[in-house]
C-alpha cells in the first residue's frame, strides 16, 4: 500500500472515482443510453493513470473508455452528450464511447477495435520521439487484446525503436465471457513483454495508490529515455461486458467482486488514515451529485448532430 499522497490528494482521488461511478449510473438513467462498456470496478485504473500523466502525454484507450475520458478531464456534460450521440460532446456526437477523443487535452482517443489502438499508439509515440516532445504515450487495452497479434508486433517495434510508449493492460479478468485463463496461454500477461526485453510489472489495479506508484515509476523511466514499459493492472469487471451483453457469471463470483471494489477499498483506507468520515463522504457525494445534475442538463439541452455537417468531415 502506497501512502505517499497528501490528505487533499487522497480525497481528490476518491472524489474522482465517485464521479466516474455516478456518471455511469446517470448514463444508464438516460432514456436511450446506447451500447456502452462500463468501468464499474475499474475506476482506480483510470484515475491512477490520469493522475500521473501530464496533459501533454498522449493517451489512447480501448472502447471501455468512459472512465478514462472522464478521468483525463473531458467535461462530464460533453461526455454524456457524446455517449448518447448528441452534438455538444467533444466529437459532436460522431465518436460515441468507442471512439471518443479530445486532442486539446491529449486524449488521442478510444478505439472500438480490440487491440486496434496498439499500433496506432506506437505511431503516436514515434511522432513524440521524432519531434522531440519529451512526452510519454500511454495506451490502455484490455486483457482480450493480449491474444491479438497486434500486441506482439507493437512490443517488437517499440523495443526495436525504443519508443516512449507505456502499454497498460487493464486486466478485468474477462474478454466478454472468456476468462483470461481460457483465452491466453501464458502464465502471466507480463510474460508477453519479456521476450522483447520490455520491463513489465503486474500490480493491483483496484488500489488507486498502487496504480499511481507504478505509473509514476514507468513514466519517469520512459521520459528519461529508457524505452517502452508494460504494466498489467489487475482489477475486476463488476458488471457485464456491455449494456447489451448477458451476465452469466455465477452469482457467488459476482458477490466476491464486492471485496475488490476500488471505491469501497479506498474509502476504508482513507477512514483508517483519519482523512474521511461520514460527513466528509457525504460532502464529496453531494459535490459529485451536483456535477452529475449539471451534466444531465447539459446533455438534455444539447442538439442532435447535423448530417450535412458531418458529411463535410469525411
Amino acid at each position, binding site marked *: 500500500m502506497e501512502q505517499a499522497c497528501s490528505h487533499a490528494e487522497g480525497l481528490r482521488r476518491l472524489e474522482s472515482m465517485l464521479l466516474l461511478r455516478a456518471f455511469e449510473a446517470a448514463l444508464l438513467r438516460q432514456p436511450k443510453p446506447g451500447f456502452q462498456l462500463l468501468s464499474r470496478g475499474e475506476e482506480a485504473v483510470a484515475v491512477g493513470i490520469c493522475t500521473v500523466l501530464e496533459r501533454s502525454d498522449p493517451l489512447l484507450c480501448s472502447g471501455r473508455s468512459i472512465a478514462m475520458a472522464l478521468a483525463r478531464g473531458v467535461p462530464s456534460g460533453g461526455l454524456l452528450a457524446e455517449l448518447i450521440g448528441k452534438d455538444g460532446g467533444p*466529437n459532436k456526437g460522431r465518436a460515441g464511447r468507442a471512439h471518443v*477523443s479530445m486532442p*486539446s487535452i491529449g486524449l488521442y482517443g478510444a*478505439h472500438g477495435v480490440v487491440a*486496434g489502438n*496498439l499500433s496506432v*499508439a506506437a*505511431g503516436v509515440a514515434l511522432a513524440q520521439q521524432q519531434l522531440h516532445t519529451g512526452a510519454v504515450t500511454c495506451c490502455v487495452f484490455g486483457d482480450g487484446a493480449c491474444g491479438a497479434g*497486434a500486441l506482439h508486433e507493437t512490443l517488437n*517495434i517499440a523495443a526495436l525503436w525504443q519508443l516512449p510508449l507505456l502499454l497498460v493492460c487493464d486486466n478485468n479478468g474477462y474478454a466478454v465471457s472468456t476468462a483470461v485463463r481460457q483465452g491466453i496461454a501464458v502464465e502471466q500477461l507480463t510474460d508477453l513483454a519479456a521476450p522483447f526485453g520490455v520491463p513489465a510489472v503486474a500490480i493491483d489495479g483496484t488500489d488507486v495508490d498502487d496504480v499511481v506508484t507504478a505509473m509514476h515509476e514507468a513514466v519517469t523511466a520512459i521520459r528519461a529515455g529508457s524505452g517502452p514499459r508494460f504494466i498489467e493492472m489487475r482489477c475486476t469487471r463488476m458488471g457485464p461486458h456491455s449494456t447489451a451483453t448477458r451476465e452469466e457469471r455465477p452469482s457467488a463470483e459476482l458477490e466476491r467482486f464486492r471485496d475488490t471494489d476500488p471505491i469501497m477499498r479506498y474509502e476504508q483506507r482513507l477512514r483508517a488514515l483519519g482523512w474521511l468520515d461520514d460527513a466528509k463522504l457525504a460532502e464529496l457525494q453531494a459535490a459529485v451529485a451536483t456535477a452529475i445534475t449539471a451534466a444531465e442538463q447539459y446533455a438534455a439541452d444539447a442538439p442532435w448532430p447535423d448530417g450535412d455537417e458531418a458529411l463535410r468531415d469525411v
Partner: protein
Amino acid sequence: MSRLFFREAIARAISEEMQRDPTIILMGQDIAEHGGSYAETRGLFERFGAARVRNTPVAEAVTVGLAAGAAAAGLRPLAFITYVDFLMIGLDPLVNYAAKLKFKSAAQLTAPMVVKATAGAKGQGPTHAQSLDSWLMNVPGITVLAPSTSGDAYGLLKTALRAPGPVVYIDHKRLFPLGGEVPDGETLVPVASAAIRREGRHLTIVAHSYMSLVTIEAAKLLAKEGIEAEVIDLRSVWPVDWDTLEASVRRTGHLLTVEEGQEVCGVGTEIAFVLQERLDGLRVARLGARRMPVSASPVLESYALPDAERVAASARRLLQRARQDDVAVTT
C-alpha cells in the same frame, strides 16, 4: 523534360518532398540501405538518414498502424507495402482508424499518411499479384491514386505527400522498368484529374495503372479497323474525374471499362453505373480479370488478365451490340 525510369521518378518525388517537409518519414521493408524492392528508394537513406528512412520488420499491420498514429500526432508518414496483397494485413488501421479519423474526431485529428503499394501481375502468383483498387475506393475517406507513366508517378506521389488525409498510392510492377518524360520543374498532378491518352470518336475506354498502356495498344489495333477509341487514364481512382469522363462519353456514346482487378464491384462497374445515370442511352461494357486467382504460371496468368487483344475484342462487341440494338429499334 527529362527521361526517367518510373522508379527514378518515384525517388525524385519523395526526395523533393522530404527536403521540403521535415515531417515526412518513410517506413517499410527493405527501403533503407537496400534502396527498395524496386530500387525506388535508392539514395534516400543516405541522404535523409536512419531516423527518417526506417526499415520495418515483415509486419504490415504495425507498419500501417505506426503510420496512422504518427500522422495523427504530427508527422507525415509514407508507408511502403511491397505487394498490395499484404495491405490486407494492414487494412484495420487504414480503414478502421485513418479513414475515419477526421470524421470521428470532428476534424480535430487527421491522418495525412500515404500507403505506397505495388499491385498487378508479373509472375508472382496468387498472393503477390492482385489488384485491389476497388476495395479501397469503396471506403469513405481514402484517396486512391494509380499512375501509369513516370511523369504521373512523380506528380501523383507529390500530391499524395501533401494531401490532408490518407492516400493509397498504387504502382504496378510492370511499370518500374519503363521510362518516361518527367517535368524538370515541380509539377503536381492533382487528384480527380484523368488524362485523355488518345482521342477518338467511336467509343471511350477508361482504364488505369498498367491497363492504360494495354488499352493504348488495343486502341492501335482498333484503329487499323477504322475504330477510333478514346483512351482515358483515370490516374485518380478515387475521387474520380467525372467531368472528363462524362464529356468523353457524351461525344462517343459508348463506354468500355478496363481493369486488371475483378469486374464484380469493380472500378469499371462503378464508373459505368454513374455515367449511365448521367447520360441516358449510354452503352457500356466492362472488362477485368477472369474470376479466378492469378497464377505464377505464365499461361494461367495471361489467361486470367486482359490484354490488348481482349480489350479490342470487348470494344468490337460493344459497338456491334449497339449497332444491332439500333437496327432492332428502327425495324
